[in-house]
């Protein structure tokens, strides 16, 4: 291994960014307060000024700032996304994380020195797909979709050695191939790919029926949690539905990814970086999860509190074949 595995940490606000830096992040990723990133939630994210300050703070502490511009520009509205790339480049971001081919072409041409990382939203799941983005746009790193097993990750990393691989190690778990899911768009009209939001809070309603909590998305009942039953995000893929005359979590139980026990396997697989999901999370999450993952990388296992997990339950997801 040429250098230790890098821990890439989320920041939804400058306060969370500071918490990540404080907790020992090697890199921090964040996005602008608009449709150009996949956590476009009201009140969250960075203004251009905050982004520039965030980059400066990271630089002072030897942390690599990465800016996520990881949604798909609308036809006729590409300027918004292109401006985001320009702002990130001017701010001195270590890399931009993007998924759209058109935007990647723009970034590669306009900012030839800017480091491009392929977002998980591109769901590049095989060696040929990674080569496509390398050949077309010169991407330097790919964030792998959460559909691969550890041996598959090792094979991919070996197959395209010029492109670093980054994998999710902790946090929310998309059970669908990322960037190729319009479940939320079908129910709410707001698109994860175009609008940067899955299960938008504005479409979510919780109702208490006594001690039972019912969650609805755009009017569809998507879950009922019994008294004291741990809950998850109001996303469709973690919803409870009726199929074959049975009610249940058809796609996935409310659960979060925790692959901290697999850190040594990722290192052996040649993975360059581990990513923590959760730009929508609070400082408390960022600080505690970053610390526990740093410990895991250093070889001293320290589990993050179960309270931070959806449903209070962890899974290693697709990294283990049996999950599929």
């Amino acid at each position: 291994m040429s250098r230790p595995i890098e821990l890439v940490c989320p920041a939804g606000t400058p306060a969370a960014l500071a918490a990540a830096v404080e907790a020992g992040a090697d890199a921090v990723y964040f996005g602008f307060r608009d449709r150009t990133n996949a956590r476009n939630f009201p009140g969250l994210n960075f203004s251009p000024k905050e982004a520039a300050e965030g980059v400066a703070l990271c630089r002072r502490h030897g942390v690599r700032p990465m800016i996520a511009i990881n949604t798909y520009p609308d036809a006729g509205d590409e300027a918004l996304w292109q401006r985001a790339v320009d702002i990130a480049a001017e701010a001195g971001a270590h890399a931009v994380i993007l998924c759209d081919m058109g935007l990647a072409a723009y970034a590669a041409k306009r900012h030839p020195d800017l480091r491009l990382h392929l977002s998980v939203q591109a769901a590049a799941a095989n060696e040929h797909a990674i080569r496509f983005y390398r050949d077309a746009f010169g991407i330097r790193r790919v964030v792998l979709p959460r559909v691969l097993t550890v041996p598959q990750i090792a094979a991919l990393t070996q197959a395209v050695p010029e492109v670093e691989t980054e994998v999710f190690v902790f946090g929310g778990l998309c059970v669908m191939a990322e960037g190729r899911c319009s479940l939320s768009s079908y129910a709410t009209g707001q698109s994860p790919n175009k609008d940067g939001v899955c299960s938008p809070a504005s479409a979510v309603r919780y109702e208490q029926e006594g001690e039972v909590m019912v969650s609805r998305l755009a009017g569809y009942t998507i879950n009922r949690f019994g008294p004291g039953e741990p809950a998850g995000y109001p996303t469709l893929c973690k919803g409870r539905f009726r199929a074959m005359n049975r009610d249940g979590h058809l796609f996935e139980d409310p659960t979060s990814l925790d692959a901290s026990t697999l850190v040594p396997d990722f290192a052996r697989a040649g993975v360059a970086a581990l990513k923590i999901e959760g730009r929508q999370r609070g400082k408390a999450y960022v600080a505690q999860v970053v610390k526990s993952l740093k410990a895991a990388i250093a070889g001293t296992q320290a589990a993050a509190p179960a309270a931070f997990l959806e449903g209070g339950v962890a899974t290693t997801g697709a990294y283990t074949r049996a999950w599929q």
Partner: protein
Amino acid sequence: MTQPTLALGPLLYNWSADRRRAFYCGIAEDSPFDVVYLGETVCGKREPLVADAMAEAAEVLSTAGKTVVLSTLALAVTESEVDALRGVAASAGEGFRVEANDAGALALLAGRPHRVGPYVNVYNEGTLTVLAERGAESVCLPWELSADSLARLAEAAGRLGMATEVQVFGRAPLAISARCYHARAHGLSKDGCRYVCGQDVEGMPVDTLDGAAFLRVNGTQTQADALTLLVREVPDLVAAGVTAFRLSPHDLDMGAAGRVYADLLAGRLDPVAAEDALFDLLDGRAAANGFYHGRDGAAWIAA
């Protein structure tokens, strides 16, 4: 302006070999489709069991004068899936037409004429330009685009010398996963799935806890329950420069559905009559056109 063409998309469901033979014979004998897409796009495990039937279908359709195009897997992850991808891409060098459904296929087909399928995220003109530069001749736009996006992209594709296909009939695939939900619902794993997805000819219905029809599970794919139906919208799409219209195979008289669209495009049937005729063919299936109208995909915006 040349007359738009009609295409039958790849079969998304895991129909038996016999059902496939009968279906494609029917399409070959009596349907107005100019282009028929074959090839497994959902799950690589299904392919070996129906390979002979699909080879026969390709033969029969070609003989009947249809243009046959092979579509690649939407999500190729495992070694065997990637091998399948390489195999289909290689056939492009042997005179077959191929439609790429992921960036991996695009890489394998670069520099050779090929088509781009609806699973490739084409949302803007910049992406169309990248694709055109690498040899794409046509693009089938994703389901979730609105009228405005479709029109802009059709116009841009025209400028780039590409054909534009829009999907006007079928349950929209909403997601694809490494996990098989059909197997999971039957208490099985993907590796030991016993091909349970074959039990549902149009996917497994998924209702909300309130009993409202909502989604369909089709193996690793999740589809809308409501069938996207664009009919009244077709004249505007033609005017915007859309050159082909695609219907997705369902367990109904697809030849008849194709004829309705052919009559609509030829001006033999007005949009309202065409919509009525298609509703008859839908036989109680819910319809949706929300994506086109910039709404939630499940919505039906009446005239």
